[in-house]
């Protein structure tokens, strides 16, 4: 601790224009290490504000406020202003149509050089859209008071994964994610229905190509395997094929045109934004799947199947287990999963209720501090710890770190989403990369305070040794970590060691 105080003082001196509030450790015996651990699990890294709330009002009150959180969240002004400055408010239909105009104009050019240039510009504009969405995601993770909702937003995107680099999905991932955020604590059935009609999903898993007599099974299979029942969930190849038939005609229309239909089919046509149900492409034959008969009636067939899937006990179990894998342990205790699945059944798949069952369990309590952070948890919690309420001005370095660590936003190519277990993230090469990132974050502002158009970062320095540290983290550091901190020869090195410590790798 001696070394720490020394560096805390140096650090304050390094901060240009810092108010220089003296760092004080709270009185002994009042430390909030247990509450900090609890918050580390339920948030993107405990903050002093949340710790104060838990300690004055209690865990239950904090959790209830989180589970009933309203959208939009009230972010600190500096973060809110950055999000509002991002061009993400344009509705998806005109946005995508505008991008289509740009694409077609580029493709139509006859001069090769001009064409290549225009195509590059189009690609860059798409990439910028996904980057802006990533920035919003990270600013929300860092500063939204609705921390449980933000973790679930990430979880659901990953569960219903799409990959930004397919086709023009970079224009859609922001919208897709926002819809998941709004539904993240609600009923699973709503999440399932939302994703099944979002153009990002219909395009990513090729359902826009799926038509009567021109079957494409891709989405049907993943809908059963990854989104609902799980791979051992009791469906057959035949069920996949039948579900693919149910899904025929559900696709994406980027234009304003409406297909010419026979009068009988016209009433069944539906258009919502980019999504289109085209009865002329739908297979109206009867289907038999998962033990039920689905009469040919158009779009309503899918609703019937999604109702079945969302309440299926195997879905309850599969998704509960995955939630527990994210929030509790790599191998969640089966008894806990059963209780969550039971609550799923009682609550008609209300995620907030399933989470109540999970957080209130002894298994949850026993698991605290033992879950290895995935790269996103690592990077976000490190920045939250290093800068607390001082809002970063640029998230690009964080996106870069997430690329290096293999978990960049919207960048999982395959529909299974990023893995949630330690084995996937704790390889030797990955640990070394984390240490390098610990050094980058610990040693200075690292580009996090560089405003576009300015030559250098605005003055900032990672200030880890604040009250949250003394109160919530220091009391539970392992002896070996304390020893390493004592060997630091500079504040930068002290920060690096803390962020590189085994204690900080877990939540």
């Amino acid at each position, binding site marked *: 601790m001696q070394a720490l105080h020394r560096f805390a003082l140096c650090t304050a001196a390094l901060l240009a224009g810092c108010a220089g509030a003296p760092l004080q450790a709270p009185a002994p015996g009042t430390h909030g290490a247990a509450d900090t651990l609890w918050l580390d699990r339920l948030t993107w890294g405990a903050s002093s504000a949340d710790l104060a709330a838990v300690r004055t009002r209690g865990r239950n009150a904090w959790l209830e406020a989180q589970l009933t959180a309203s959208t939009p969240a009230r972010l600190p002004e500096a973060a809110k202003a950055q999000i509002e400055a991002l061009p993400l408010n344009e509705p998806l239909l005109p946005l995508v149509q505008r991008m289509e105009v740009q694409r077609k104009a580029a493709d139509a050019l006859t001069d090769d050089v001009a064409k290549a240039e225009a195509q590059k510009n189009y690609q860059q504009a798409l990439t910028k859209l996904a980057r802006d969405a990533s920035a919003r995601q990270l600013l929300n993770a860092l500063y939204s008071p609705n921390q449980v909702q933000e973790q679930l937003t990430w979880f659901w995107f990953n569960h219903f994964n799409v990959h930004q680099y397919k086709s023009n999905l970079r224009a859609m991932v922001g919208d897709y994610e926002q819809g998941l955020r709004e539904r993240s604590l609600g009923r699973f059935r709503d999440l399932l229905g939302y994703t099944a009609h979002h153009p990002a999903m219909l395009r990513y898993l*090729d359902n826009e*190509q*799926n*038509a009567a*007599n*021109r*079957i*494409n*099974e*891709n989405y049907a*299979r993943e809908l059963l*395997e990854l989104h609902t029942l799980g*791979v051992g969930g009791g469906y057959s*190849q035949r069920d*996949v094929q039948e579900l693919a038939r149910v899904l025929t005609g559900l696709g994406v229309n980027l234009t304003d045109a409406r297909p010419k239909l026979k009068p009988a089919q016209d009433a069944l046509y539906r258009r919502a934004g980019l999504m289109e149900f085209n009865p002329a492409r739908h297979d109206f034959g009867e289907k038999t799947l998962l033990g039920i008969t689905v009469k040919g009636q158009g779009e309503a067939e899918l609703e019937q199947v999604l109702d079945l899937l969302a309440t299926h006990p195997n879905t309850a179990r599969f998704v509960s287990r995955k939630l527990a894998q994210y929030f509790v342990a790599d191998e969640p205790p089966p008894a806990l999963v059963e209780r969550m699945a039971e609550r799923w059944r009682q609550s008609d798949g209300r995620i907030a209720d399933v989470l109540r069952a999970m957080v209130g369990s002894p298994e949850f309590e026993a698991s605290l501090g033992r879950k290895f952070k995935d790269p996103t948890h690592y990077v976000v919690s490190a920045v939250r710890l290093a800068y607390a309420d001082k809002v970063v001005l640029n998230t690009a370095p964080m996106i870069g770190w997430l690329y*290096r*660590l*293999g978990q960049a936003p919207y960048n999982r*190519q*395959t529909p*299974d989403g990023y*893995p949630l277990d330690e*084995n*996937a*993230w*704790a*390889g*030797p*090469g*990955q*640990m*070394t990369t984390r*240490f*390098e990132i610990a*050094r*980058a974050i610990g040693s200075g502002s690292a580009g996090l305070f560089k405003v576009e158009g300015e030559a250098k970062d605005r003055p900032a320095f990672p200030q880890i040794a604040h009250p949250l540290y003394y109160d919530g983290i220091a009391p539970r550091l*392992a002896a*070996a*970590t304390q*020893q*390493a901190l004592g*060997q630091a020869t500079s504040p930068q*090195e002290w920060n*690096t*060691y803390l962020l*590189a*410590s*085994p204690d900080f*790798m877990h939540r």
Partner: protein
Amino acid sequence: MDRRLLLQLGIGAALPTKLWAATPDSPRLLVVFLRGAYDAANLLVPTSSSFYYEARPNIAIAKKDTLPLDANWGLAPAVADSIHPLWGKGQAAFVPFAGTNDTSRSHFETQDHIELGQPDEGGRDFRSGFMNRLAGVLGAGSRLEAMAFTDQVPLILRGNLPVANQALRDLGKPAINAAQAQVIAAMYAHTRLAGTVSSGFEVREEVSREMAGEMEAASRGAIAAKGFALEARRIARLMRERVTLGFIDVGGWDTHVGEGGATGQLATKLGELGKGLALFADEMGPQWSNTVVVVVSEFGRTFRENGNRGTDHGHGSAWWVLGGGVRGGRIAGEQVEVKAASLFQNRDWPVLNEYRAMLGGLFRRMYGLNDAQLAQVFPGASARDIGLV
């Protein structure tokens, strides 16, 4: 003395690298996993099958466009300059109708299945991949002998033996200095990540030493490779010197839509892959004669094209075996005439060459493994030698 311990004592870094380099002539194995299930029938084209041309009206590769391999098979023109020359030298063989007994047609399920290499029936242990068990049987002493050239340690290399991983796409100088590395490693000394952390530092240092040679070559005017070719060349540098068991994966093969034929989406991917593997063979130099590259994919695709000029998830695939000592220039393994009646479930290539039996046979030849050792690598499988080396 254990190198990890030496590192902790701060003297490991000073050891001459020769101490734990691989024996010069020990066999090298590189497994290349094409994740996403590549369409084998448009790489290894059954040119004598009229059914192939009926089943793929839009995406079949015309016989005249292929490079004839024998009376029945032609090779996709996309690999004309890369893999076909190896075939000509007798250093490339193909095993059509290869794969697993898994019929889930799930990418993830079947990839896991292959990587674990465990019996089809019964529970699966996700902490034990077959390359890790192979490394154990071969007595890989140092961590660098088995290595994944990927961002994550893949299932295939997870297990009792700690295995290094390091993706080779972007490599800079290590940002953590030796003194800091020691302090950090000490924090982990009594945790379950102790071995992981120390071997991570070790590998990082080792790789950057190897890559220093690359920068030197570049400054002498060597052509800069990029993409998979760059990675393949870097892998070769490491496998030439010290890694004997390597793994890399390449994604993007899930061609449900607009797959293409002689040219197009799949052809472009195959071209890049072939180019990288040819560069790998070249860079291995004399070690190429001790090297076997196995190119695998989780399953094949539907034999008939789908409604979108693509193909859906199928069953049997075609695996490639390349190497200086490979008995190449031939189509290996059990075969069947390609026609409608021979399709599995009337949609896919059947699996006639089960991968565990086939790889068991290969490992027996490569490493002289006995039955008991093979049973450790592929429990419950009986090795079948189809004469690949």
